[in-house]
């Protein structure tokens, strides 16, 4: 699910990056002890700093050990949002998972640098700050049976990954990269991530059961705290709102994608060089931004331009080779 730079426009990357930065800043503020911090505050912080670091490294390593997906011959690995949240708590998990994503980008160029904001949002924010508190926490009990742990992990992982897949789709569409209408794109993304989510949930459940058996004190963070009834009500409302948004959002996009795609292909076959503005808001703003920044593409010159550019690049490559041999000789 790592988005590459190729799939985002700078505007979308900036918006997602800003959202992720604000949330990361909040997480840092929540975890860093205040200057005149309470003693317990400091104790918590000094313990959480190394644990977060090592858990980040653990997720990184665990992602590279694949397990066989039964019946398909393929293999899968974990993303780790729910697992980290269950052990570290959501805010520390957000920081740990984000640092894993940043490292994957800065070490192995896995997921783009501009798309980093999108990736943190899709994979860390949505699973640690949305799926964990709204799905996993309400389902977990201090005396949960393994079955319950598995059920909670699977449901939370599926929710997190489906939300992530929805976000990937929306970001790609808002970047006006793909020609695929959003409804079909969702039909393609959501089932894949449903399967991935179930695998992720089972793996998370297996790990949480192991932790519970050997180190039950580490799961202390998942015990439901006594909450005033009002807050619980607010939380239920929020859960319903998320579900409604998810369902309503996907169906309305499905409904609107048909005329949108039709109009779009009509305008193409009619031979107008300019794209007709699509009826929905996202496309229109994206198209408006492109219109103001782009001269009209003129295909008469495309071939010549391609050839010219190719020659130029060849010459540049020759230049770099010359430079290299000269340096070697020196």
């Amino acid at each position, binding site marked *: 699910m790592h988005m590459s730079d190729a799939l985002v*426009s700078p505007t979308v990357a900036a918006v997602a990056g800003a959202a992720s930065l604000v949330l990361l800043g909040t997480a840092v503020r929540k975890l860093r002890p205040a200057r005149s911090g309470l003693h317990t505050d400091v104790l918590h912080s*000094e313990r959480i700093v*190394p644990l977060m670091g090592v858990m980040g490294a653990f997720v990184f390593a665990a992602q590279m050990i694949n397990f*066989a997906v039964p019946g398909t011959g393929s293999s899968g690995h974990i993303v780790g949002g729910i697992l980290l949240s269950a052990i570290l708590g959501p805010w520390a998990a957000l920081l740990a998972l984000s640092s894993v994503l940043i490292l994957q980008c800065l070490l192995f160029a896995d997921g783009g*640098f*501009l798309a980093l904001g999108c990736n943190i949002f899709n994979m860390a924010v949505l699973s640690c700050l949305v799926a964990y508190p709204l799905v996993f926490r309400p389902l977990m009990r201090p005396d949960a049976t393994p079955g319950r742990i598995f059920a909670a992990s699977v449901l939370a992982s599926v929710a997190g990954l489906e939300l992530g897949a929805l976000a990937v789709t929306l970001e790609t569409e808002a970047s006006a990269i793909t020609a695929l209408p959003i409804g079909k794109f969702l039909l393609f993304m959501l089932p894949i991530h449903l399967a991935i989510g179930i695998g992720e949930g089972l793996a998370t459940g297996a790990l949480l059961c192991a932790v519970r058996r050997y180190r039950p004190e580490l799961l202390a963070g998942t015990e439901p705290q006594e909450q005033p009834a009002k807050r619980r009500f607010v939380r239920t409302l929020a859960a319903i709102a998320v579900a409604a948004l998810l369902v309503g959002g996907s169906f309305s996009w499905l409904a609107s994608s048909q005329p949108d795609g039709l109009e779009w292909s009509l305008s193409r076959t009619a031979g107008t060089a300019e794209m007709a503005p699509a009826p929905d808001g996202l496309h229109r703003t994206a198209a408006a931004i492109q219109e103001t920044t782009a001269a009209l593409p003129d295909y008469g010159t495309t071939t010549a331009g391609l050839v010219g550019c190719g020659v130029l690049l060849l010459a540049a490559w020759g230049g770099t080779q010359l430079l*290299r041999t000269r340096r070697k000789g020196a």
Partner: protein
Amino acid sequence: MKNSLQNALCALDALERNARAESPMHRLDARAKLLATTVYLVTMLSVPLPQLSEILLYALFPMATATLGGMRLGPLLRRSLAVLPFVALIGIFNLLYDRTPALRIGTLTVTEGGIEFAAILLRGILSMAALLVLIGTTGFYALCRALQQSGIPRFLTVQLLFVYRYLRVLLEEALAMSRACDARSFGRKHPALRVWGTLVGQLLLRTFDRAEQIHRAMLARGFTGRIPDCTAGKPRWRRADTAFLTGWSLALIAARWSYPVETLTRLFR
């Protein structure tokens, strides 16, 4: 055959080796390189998809910086190709959906969707190549320091350094465990989910133990939950950094606004 753990360890080694090399690119301040790469990505990714030739022109930046940094172009291109599968999966729909003919080369008709598909792949390869050059000529510690100096909270950058430090340790531990598992599972490629759960659960327990050891070691050295500022010996911003950053930024922004390829081809007609 190497598995992904071994590949990751090799990549980490290569990264450290490359970061210590000597070249004009290596001597530049990490902030200058980071900013120039960001400008590059923003300008390159904002070029509309149908203008393939303009995007092609942007290949000059990774080529030039890689050469300056003493990186070879062949391996760079090969590593950049790793981005293709996912990008092609999304981009292939443009190829299938948009079949308006755009240009002819001999008997071959290229559709507009084909051009967009090629443009998406090219964007993927170029952005990856630029990022790889940045990483290869800077190294992780310098990048982390650059992030911190440009305003990312110390709490987060220290977290990054922590993960980086223990990544190696845990990768080696995971490698030993998965090797032991391979030796006992008789040619099976991946362990079943139950075995995987035990295996990775074991790794998780070892991780906790290590975290506890680290915590005690940190306490013994006077850690109080606050992270000290350890950017002593900051690299100084030199004139070469300013020149590099402004030169490339101006060139890239100029290329974005003036469509040089199109203007030139018009001129020659």
